């Protein structure tokens, strides 16, 4: 890992790992928790995620050149650090599994009902493996290239504005406080890939000031993109219907008719697989990095294969029926809080202690 990625590559790699499965079902999930105010909670959640980005860049600055696992070890001590590192390994695996199973289910429901799901998994896994096999620099280049899809797909979403009514955003302020809190946590989790910043930041060129600026900018781009999709689907469907539709973004494009493409929803779904792949690849990469840091370092490709075999195995089990899928999602929900919110805050606080130590050491 001698080569570093440039700042713009860093921005794109961050954006692409944020936007995954959530983009399709976020409007419904938000609406279920906060009603028509879902978009307000998304804005608040976006602001909170920026705070986390700031904390993570700060922590990373205090431990120059070290990635997540290095930081864990130097701030928590060797034993606890390794344990936390292993925890992150599990977390990344679970997220990767979640991404893979949701992707499989979606494609199965919408596009290829007859194709065995295992093959869909394999296809995504192979392309993700190929992407990350070249290391971070290659990954960054591929992700930068795929950013084109983001602009294209946002333009296609404009079809949703046909038949939309602004009145569906009214009335505001009807959700309860717990609904708001729910909505905010949903939106923070939908932006929870900020943890991956720990892995990208040390390998990015430029000063920390620049990195911080880029990370915040990228975070805002993702939040705005989410807001855009949420607003369109709220205006298009209205409250009552939205509750019944799990992928509103695709659903609203079902009638959009253009001269070139008859079924824009299916076209968008195909483009979306790019996002599914990039987000999945980032987490696979993270899991592979974590696996490499476990005791007894192995050869790199073995890490990759072990990780992907675990992911594939659990995904196949999860894809068997909805109950298994539910177990995976519930487990992910349970641990997400610790690994995306608690530990970054802890590390952030510990980084202050360390700085004091350092200053004290320098003085004496």
């Amino acid at each position, binding site marked *: 890992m001698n080569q570093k990625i440039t700042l713009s590559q860093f921005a794109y790699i961050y954006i692409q790992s944020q936007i995954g499965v959530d983009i399709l079902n976020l409007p419904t999930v938000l609406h279920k928790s906060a009603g028509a105010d879902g978009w307000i909670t998304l804005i608040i959640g976006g602001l909170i995620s920026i705070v986390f980005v700031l904390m993570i860049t700060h922590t990373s600055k205090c431990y120059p050149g070290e990635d997540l696992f290095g930081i864990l070890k130097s701030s928590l001590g060797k034993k606890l650090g390794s344990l936390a590192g292993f925890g992150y390994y599990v977390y990344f695996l679970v997220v990767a599994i979640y991404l893979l199973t949701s992707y499989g289910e979606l494609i199965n429901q919408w596009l290829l009902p*007859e194709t065995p799901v295992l093959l869909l998994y394999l296809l995504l896994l192979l392309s993700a493996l190929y992407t990350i096999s070249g290391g971070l620099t290659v990954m960054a280049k591929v992700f930068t290239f795929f950013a084109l899809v983001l602009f294209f797909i946002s333009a296609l979403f404009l079809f949703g504005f046909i038949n939309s009514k602004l009145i569906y955003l009214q009335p505001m302020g009807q959700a309860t406080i717990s609904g708001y809190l729910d909505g905010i946590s949903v939106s923070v989790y939908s932006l929870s890939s900020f943890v991956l910043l720990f892995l990208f930041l040390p390998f990015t060129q430029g000063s920390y000031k620049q990195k911080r600026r880029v990370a915040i900018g990228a975070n805002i781009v993702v939040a705005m993109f989410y807001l855009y999709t949420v607003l369109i689907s709220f205006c298009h469907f209205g409250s*009552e219907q939205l509750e019944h539709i799990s992928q509103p973004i695709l659903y609203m494009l079902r009638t959009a008719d253009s001269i070139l493409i008859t079924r824009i929803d299916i076209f968008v779904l195909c483009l979306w697989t790019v996002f599914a792949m990039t987000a999945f690849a980032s987490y696979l990469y993270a899991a592979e990095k974590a696996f490499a840091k476990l005791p007894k370092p192995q050869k790199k490709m073995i890490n990759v294969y072990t990780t992907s075999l675990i992911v594939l195995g659990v995904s196949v089990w999860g894809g068997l029926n909805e109950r298994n899928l539910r177990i995976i999602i519930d487990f992910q929900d349970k641990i997400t809080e610790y690994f995306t919110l608690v530990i970054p805050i802890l590390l952030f606080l510990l980084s202050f202690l360390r700085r004091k130590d350092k200053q004290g050491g320098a003085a004496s």
Partner: protein
Amino acid sequence: MKRLVVVVLLSCTLVLSGCWDTREFKEVKLGITAAYDLTEDNVYTNTILIPNVQNSSSAGPGQESVQFLTATGGTPQEARANIDRRLSSSYSPSQLDVLLLGENLAKKDIYPYIDAFYRDPRLHLDAVLAVVKGNAEQALKVVPESEMRPSEYIEGILESNVETTRSMEVNLQTMGAEIFENGQDFVVPAMQVGDGGKTVSYEGLALFHKSSYTGKDIPFDHTTLFLLMKNVKGKVASMTTKLYDGKEPQPNNYVSVHVEDYTSKIKSKPSKEHKVRTDINLEMTVMIEEYPTDDLSLSVLPRLTKDIEKALTKEASDIIKTTQDADCDVFGIGRSIYGHYPDYWKKLDWDKIYKDIEIVPHIKVNVRTRGIFR
């Protein structure tokens, strides 16, 4: 190692070229128009029209032959299976263009019959709806000889009326939000078989409440004004209005205007006497298209404008009265009250009070030109 990867990837392309999910065009029969009916004794029947375009052996488009199939069943899906039994290849409604609903069926809850369209991702939500007064199957089977493509006859009628602002496009998706959402209802084009079963004609807009047909319509000659009030305009819009009574000869009582530009604003607010007061402000810039009285000097114009405004306001009041009698909140007044005054909305029993709320049309006409003959 590298070679191995290449081999694996290449073999992937052989194996994974989507063999499982191919659905070949030659293996399905596409239904273009479907008619859903309820018979007298509440049996659901489904009639479909399948165009057959394979017999164009000579050059140029061959005469299209159509096939009609009728089946009964508990649900549309079962009726589909029953239709399938009589076809050599399987029947697919995924390219359905028009869905005709018989009057009897529309008066019941229509949602159970269209549920499959929302649920199955293979079905297109683009299908246009229409209510047929009487039997929908009968309307579907009308095949005028002059039409090159009988399968497009009904769709053509609906589309051309949308262009001239006599009707609006109502497909399953635009209707979806309105069926589910409280405080707003929708309209669907209404059709009728005429000329002793030789033609089908567009009759106006059928008013729906929740998801059933109320039995009342906006009559054909009021549809343009109604749609403009609802802020919908096709490519062109023109209206003929009766201004006076008792002038001789008869056409002198009328004027026709061509609407060039318009703005429509609907504002609702709570009020004391009628619970809710709604103002519909419609401003139009028009061209006089037809004025049989033949004396249209500039000095007459202000009076004429006044008269047009008066006549149109009266028509608008009639339209509003029809919608209120039908209990069809087609302007979405309830949703707008809920949006802007949520606390007030909770105190209202909308279905009950909608009949009595005050809706006032304000119509302003601005005559831009009188045409080239003065």
